[in-house]
Structure formats: C-alpha cells, structure tokens
C-alpha cells in the first residue's frame, strides 16, 4: 500500500478525528489529532492498521504550546502523530493502555517538559535526580543552563 | 637439634617459605599457560619472564589500604585469612615430598594422613563461608551461600575418587600409596576415571572456572571477597595459591605414582607432576564457561558421584582378582 492510498484510507476511516494528514517524504505520515482523542486514535491505529511499535515520543516547546509527536512505525510506513497542548495547562493522556512500551518515553516527557501524563503506570522521574529542584524542566526553551566555571582540580587557572 | 630441625621443617622446607615461593611460581605458571592458551602474553615484565609478578602482586596488596566494614564482625573478619593460610600450610606439610625413606618417614607421615589432608583441604571452604558471612555485604552473603551449596556438590565425589586408589593400595598413608604405585605403575591405569573426577572436583574446590561461582565477578562483584582488601585479601589469595599447590600435590601423589627417588630426584618429580596437574586444571579453566550453581549440583550428583561410586566398585572387584 502506498502512502497516498493509505492517506485516503485513513481519511475515510478516521474522518474528522484527525485534523490534518501530511506526507512530506516517502514513508513519513504526519497526523494531527486533538490531545483528548489521542488514545482513541492510537487504539484504532493499533487494531486496524497494525501500528504496534512506538519508536519514541518527542516533545517540542513552541512557546505558547507544547507539540508532542508520537513516532510509530510499521513495515508499510511511519506514522507520526502530532498533538498540541497548551503550556499553561500541560496535561496529556497516557497511551500505555494501548502501547505498554510507551512508559519510559512518557516518563522522560514528564521530566524534560513538565508535562503531566494522566494515567501513567509509573510516574517516578526517569532521568532527573531526586533532588532536582521542582519546576525546572530542562528542555523548555525558557530554561537556560549555566555552564559552571571550569575548575581544574589543583590547577593554576 | 630436633627443635631446630622441626623449626626448619615448619618455616623453610617444606613449610611456609617453600610453599610461598612454590605457590607463587605455580600461580605464575597457571597465569602464563592460561594466557598462552588465549593467545596473550601473560606476566612478562616483572623479573625474568614475569616470574616475580605474583610476588609483586602480593607485596602490592600488602601495602594497600585495609578497609573493614563497620557492620562486620571485626575479630572474625580479621582472623579468618590467617586461619585459612595456616590450615592449607598444615596440609602442605603432609605432602610426601620430603619423605625420602619409607622405612623412616618424617613425623608428619602417619597412617590415615590422606584423610587428615582431605579434611584440612575442606576447611578453607568453610572459612570462606564464614568470611563471606561475617563481612555482611549482600554480594558476600550470596557468595557464601554459593560456597556452601557447591561444597555439597563436589566434596563427596572428591573423597570417593581419592579413596579408590587408596583402597587398591590397601593403605591410608600417602607415602605408602605412592610407594605402592611406584612398584606397580600399571595399576595406575584403572584409576584414570577417578583421576578425572578428582581433577574436576579439585577445580570446584579451588573455585576456578567453570566453578568460579562464589566469586563470579560479572554476577556478584567480588563474591566472598567483596569486602576484603589489602593484607587480608593478599593472605586469601596466598591461601588459594597454596591450596592449588597442595591439592595438585595430593592428586600427583595419589594418581601419578608419588614422588620417588632421593631428595633431588624426588623434588624434581614433585615439581614436574604438580605442574602437570596444574596444567590440566588450567586447560579445564580455559576450556569451559562458568556454569550456574544449580547446574553444578545436578552435574555433581548426576554424573560425578555415580561415576565415582562405579569407580570404587570396579576397584574393589579388581582388588579381589589381584594376588
């Protein structure tokens, strides 16, 4: 099945649950869905299209909004599901009911962007230390890392 | 005079000094052969051909910081390496290396010394277990449990295998067993199976691959030795080296026809035969991968112990036919 046929099928199948489907390159489909429909679309894709493999979840800080991309892949094509949530109220539903392997990526998302994933089975921080100051989310654009002064132990300067 | 002689026996030959030098040499030999099996160089640069490397390691460990865990039973923790060393050195005294004359054997040779020696050789295992347990580290505890578990596997086959030549020789005395096979070397052949079983069991006793389970570094870090450092670790390593010499000497005396000849020839026999046994142990080490502790037990009880019993039966039958 080529990408174009697949897009037609997806459009007729999912209807207006998907806001936008684009195909910028071969084997790359970008679907845009509303955050509250994410789990439904994921489940539907898993059951009807065999989309079981989640490569990763990447988040981008776009200023006012967080853009979250779920990168799925199947032998036919890659699905990248995009959703946007407001920075003021960063809540998203967990997709672990559909894809159990998503938990690590969702934990990373929580750590790095401060997005609250509702219904995540394991909400502990993944990569940040326990004494990490609350409210610091490193991959947000307004978080700046200050490089510490280089000190050479026992050195002259 | 007798006191001086006894002291010389104890301290110089075949006592501590000789055992120290010879065991470090054996460690060098073992490491070198192991390295050559694996296309490596082994110790090269300390002393000629790296001969001094084990001594250098020993001295280096002696000079290292000695850390004792807070929660450990400190007295037991400190005293165990010394007891271990004493036990294996005592076992070393029983080796028939210096009993040149069977009619007038030294005061350490007596009827039943083979049993005493086997007993002394099982003590280090218990000492290891105590050392592991007293250091209270999690990894040590697991290692200690593994030491004891393995003990139940290899000890019985080892005893059965070592006793079968003794039964054939009709003696419980190492010097007499050695002398018996000296007279009738062909009778060594029926003991071949027992020799192989004893080799495997000794390998397990010395905790070398494939039986290095109690201190399998990739699984439980240092295992029994996790908390040991500095002087105590050095003594433990020396204990293992001496145990290697003593147990290979035991196998050589029992299965390879003893160490006949006078002082010099007998000593050369001793060296050649123990090195041969160490070579075989080293080969076994290079040949296999580590197995799990449950596999050790099932291997020992499914194969080693029945085979050892079979060997014993065969020897007893053979003895009936012999004049």
């Amino acid at each position: 099945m080529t990408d174009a046929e697949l897009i037609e099928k997806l459009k007729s199948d999912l209807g207006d649950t998907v806001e936008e489907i684009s195909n910028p390159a071969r084997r790359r489909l970008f679907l845009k869905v509303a955050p509250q429909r994410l789990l439904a679309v994921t489940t539907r894709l898993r059951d009807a299209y065999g989309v079981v493999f989640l490569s990763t979840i990447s988040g981008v800080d776009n200023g006012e909004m967080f853009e979250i991309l779920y990168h799925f892949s199947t032998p036919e094509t890659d699905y990248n599901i995009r959703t946007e949530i407001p920075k003021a109220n960063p809540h998203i539903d967990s997709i672990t009911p559909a894809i159990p392997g998503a938990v690590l990526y969702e934990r990373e998302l929580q750590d790095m962007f401060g997005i609250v994933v509702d219904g995540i089975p394991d909400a502990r921080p993944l990569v940040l230390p326990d004494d990490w100051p609350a409210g610091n989310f490193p991959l947000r654009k307004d978080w700046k890392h200050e490089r510490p002064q280089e000190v050479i132990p026992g050195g002259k300067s | 005079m007798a006191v001086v002689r006894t002291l010389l026996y104890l301290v110089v030959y075949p006592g501590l000094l000789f055992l120290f030098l010879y065991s470090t040499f054996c460690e060098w030999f073992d490491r070198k052969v192991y390295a050559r099996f694996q296309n490596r160089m082994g110790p090269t640069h300390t002393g000629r051909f790296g001969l001094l490397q084990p001594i250098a390691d020993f001295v280096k460990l002696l000079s290292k910081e000695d850390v004792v865990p807070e929660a450990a039973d400190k007295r037991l923790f400190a005293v165990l390496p010394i007891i271990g060393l004493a036990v294996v050195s005592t076992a070393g005294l029983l080796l028939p290396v210096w009993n040149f004359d069977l009619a007038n054997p030294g005061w350490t040779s007596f009827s039943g010394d083979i049993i005493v020696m086997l007993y002394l050789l099982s003590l280090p295992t218990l000492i290891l277990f105590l050392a592991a347990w007293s250091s209270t580290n999690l990894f040590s505890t697991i290692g200690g449990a593994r030491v004891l578990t393995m003990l139940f596997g290899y000890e019985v086959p080892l005893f059965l295998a070592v006793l079968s030549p003794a039964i054939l020789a009709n003696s419980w005395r190492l010097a007499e067993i050695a002398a018996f096979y000296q007279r009738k070397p062909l009778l060594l052949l029926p003991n071949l199976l027992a020799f192989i079983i004893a080799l495997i069991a000794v390998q397990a006793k010395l905790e070398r691959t494939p039986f290095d389970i109690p201190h399998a570094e990739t699984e439980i870090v240092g295992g029994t030795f996790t908390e040991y450092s500095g002087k105590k670790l050095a003594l433990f390593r020396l204990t293992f080296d001496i145990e290697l010499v003593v147990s290979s000497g035991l196998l050589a005396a029992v299965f390879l026809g003893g160490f006949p000849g006078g002082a010099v020839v007998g000593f050369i026999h001793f060296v050649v035969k123990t090195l041969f046994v160490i070579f075989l142990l080293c080969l076994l080490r290079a040949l296999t991968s580590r197995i799990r502790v449950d596999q050790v037990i099932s291997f020992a009880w499914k194969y080693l112990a029945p085979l050892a019993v079979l060997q014993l039966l065969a020897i007893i039958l053979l003895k009936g036919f012999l004049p």
Partner: protein
Amino acid sequence: MKIAVFLPELLRHLFKKPATVDYPFKKLEVPKDFRGTPYLNPEMCIACRACERDCPAEAIEISSVNEAEKRFRMVIHNDRCIHCAQCVDSCPTTPKAMQMDSLFEIACDDRHKLKTDWVYVRAVLKPKAAAPAAAPQAAEPKT
C-alpha cells in the same frame, strides 16, 4: 553435543606467538591518515576564524593581539580537543593552515601543558602565491 571442542584450538595457541602488542616497549605504526593532534601553520593562516567557529569542542581560541599590526594569537586546547579534524576541513586556505599530525601519545600529567599557542601575523594570500606571503618571523610555537 560435543565435549571439549575448544581443546585443539587451545593447544595450538600454546605454540603461537601472542597476538598482543607489548605496547610501551614496542609500538604500532598508525596509518598515514591518522587523526592525531591539530597544529597551525602560522605563515598560511589568514585568521578567518572558520576553525574556531566549527570546532565542536571549543578547543580553538583566536584573539587579536594587535589589530594594527595584524598580529593574532591562537590557542589550541589539546585537553579539550576531540581530534575530529573538522578544523582542517573548515580551513579555507590551500595548503591548509590547520593540519593534523599523527601523534597519539599526548597524555601528560598537567592539563596546562597540553595548551599550544602561537602568536603570528596574519598571512595575506595572493591568488596564485605558492610561497607564503607574510614573513614567519613571529611564529614560534610556545607551550
């Protein structure tokens, strides 16, 4: 399943030469394109700062000593250098002002000894000049 399949292999190796190189006593030859330590040919450098801009480890520092005399100072922090040779690729001159040698034993006990610096006069490249245009008198590397 067989027993002791490794045996012939092990015994054969007993008589083979070790595969190990006795390193500090014998040394291996490195290939001719080995990426070692970067160094500067001061007579070719036009101080365009392309290397400084592209260096991923920020190991190159170029500062102006005297703008009127066109004297520049370049410091290569070999303690930060990751030996990627991007500075050589980025260098626009022909022949290159930045080059790599094949030294690999540069470890030492003090990070400050790893700094190399040059004070030099900016070269003015003539279009087809084969010889370096500027005098290299000020170009002694100091450590």
